[in-house]
């Protein structure tokens, strides 16, 4: 199961890298979304996917899944959610101000280079 997850996460990272190297800003943002999905799934996988009951006491189960990675993912999800929201608004604002969503055209300082 871990091997399958590793392959899927690898594909997510690959897609994210490809999208982040493109010119359109929205594709880049979609790429960051996929990147964070990959990272979150990786935490889950790395914590171990051995079978066990959901980490809620009272189920009277023999063993439980590891609760720590789930807490880490929850934290990482809200953080990346906040950052993505900010990034989307920034992209919207810069589309209004700069009149382009092509990152090739967002170069240089006022004078030159």
């Amino acid at each position: 199961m871990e091997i399958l997850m590793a392959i899927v996460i690898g594909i997510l990272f690959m897609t994210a890298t490809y999208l982040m190297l493109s010119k359109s800003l929205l594709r880049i943002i979609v790429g960051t979304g996929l990147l964070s999905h990959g990272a979150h799934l990786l935490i889950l996988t790395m914590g171990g996917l051995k079978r066990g009951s959901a980490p809620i006491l009272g189920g009277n189960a023999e063993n439980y899944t590891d609760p720590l990675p789930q807490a880490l993912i929850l934290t990482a999800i809200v953080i990346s959610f906040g950052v993505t929201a900010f990034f989307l608004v920034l992209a919207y604002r810069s589309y209004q101000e700069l009149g382009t969503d092509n990152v090739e055209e967002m170069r240089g300082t006022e004078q030159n280079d």
Partner: protein
Amino acid sequence: MAQRVTAVFSSIATLIVSFLNVQKVKNAGIQTLNISSWDAPFGITLVSDMFSAILVFTTSLIAFLCLLYSFKAIGEAREKYYYYPVFHFLLVGVNGAFTTGDIFNLFVFFEVMLMSSYVLLVLGGTKIQLRESIKYLLVNIISSALFVIAVAYLYSVVGTLNMAHISARISEVSTNGMPGILTVIAVLFLIVFGIKGAIFPLYFWMPGSYYAPPAPVLALFGALLTKVGVYSITRTYTLFFYHDRDFTFQLLSILAILSVVAGVIGAIAYWDVKKIIIYNIIVAIGVILYGVSVMNPTAITGSVYYLIHDMLIKAALFLLVGVIVAITGTSNLKQISGLITRYPGLGWTFFIAALSLAGIPPLSGFVGKLLIVQGGAAGESYIGAGLVLMSSLLVLFSVMKIFIHGFWGQTRFYKGEDKVPVKWLLISPVILVVMSALFGVGSESFLPYISQAAETLTDPRIYIEAVLKE
């Protein structure tokens, strides 16, 4: 107005408390606090050893002075849109990152710091700020994702997140050298913190992004943000990955030396005052990490000393550059000349700051660099030590270029310069330069603190025992 008063009071309070904390650590050893009384490896532990205590103190000092500078420099529009709250969130992130004893908590504090830095960078919404914020944001999103990945790998190997506990477990499995997977994780951590701290191949985002924000924000970024990356590399490499010196420390050393080289090339190439100082950050990071990579007590002491010095002097230089840009309305060195006849105070402060940056003996840059070079020579890494010495010359050249072309020569008059409150703006950089001079002249009295910090870094057992209470 109410915002300003609250901000000043809270900054002064932080300054006093962090000073008391330094004294406390000095007298009573490493201070640890288990949040909500969960014992060490299970809850989050905050650890204040001397290294983090002095960094928190320096941060509070720089923050207070940048705050004073902001009053006249930042403008009402930015103040109205939550400049001071975001400013303080940045400090929360930095101080938290310096003090935490948990690797995932470090990630969270990084995000607190980065999120506020995004807002500070874009606040005001000019075109250049929008453009550069996009790049800065993207680079940091990628490095944060890599941080999460690195933490996930490390967790799957050692099964814990508490830094002292990780260190103890890594030494359990590393009796005959570190296993390969831990070396890989060490390099991954180097990439993650290298992006945040702008080391050699990963500094590409910095010159552009730091060009955009206004002077007090730039001073905060230049003095604090990259130094958090440097702190994290130092912490993880001295605490976790000290078993396999041949590979990881060799790599760190090569990258540090290349950062010095890349930094000086940038610093002497530009005719733009902001760019010159920005490239000097990269040089300083290279010098500090070179000292860490040599990893003997002398070089580590030098690195800690140089880190503190560099935070003070970079803040001072960016604030001074801010004054120059405010007076002349441009950062192009070719359009500035003869400032010394009309602004002697600014000129001489800049001159002393420049000498201090290059490491001229009575000033603070000297002691750190001397110890790093001595340590490098003692570790028989002569090429690195030689290049660090050579770099001082080119750093001196790059800042003297600003002094000679900007302050000497024909006196010019600039549009709107009489509206600039130069006297008020000079208060903070003058205090910083005086502090930096005192830090150099009185290095004997600061050295006990610095060597106590270096002691924890060279011997991780002190840290582990303080946290896990074995």
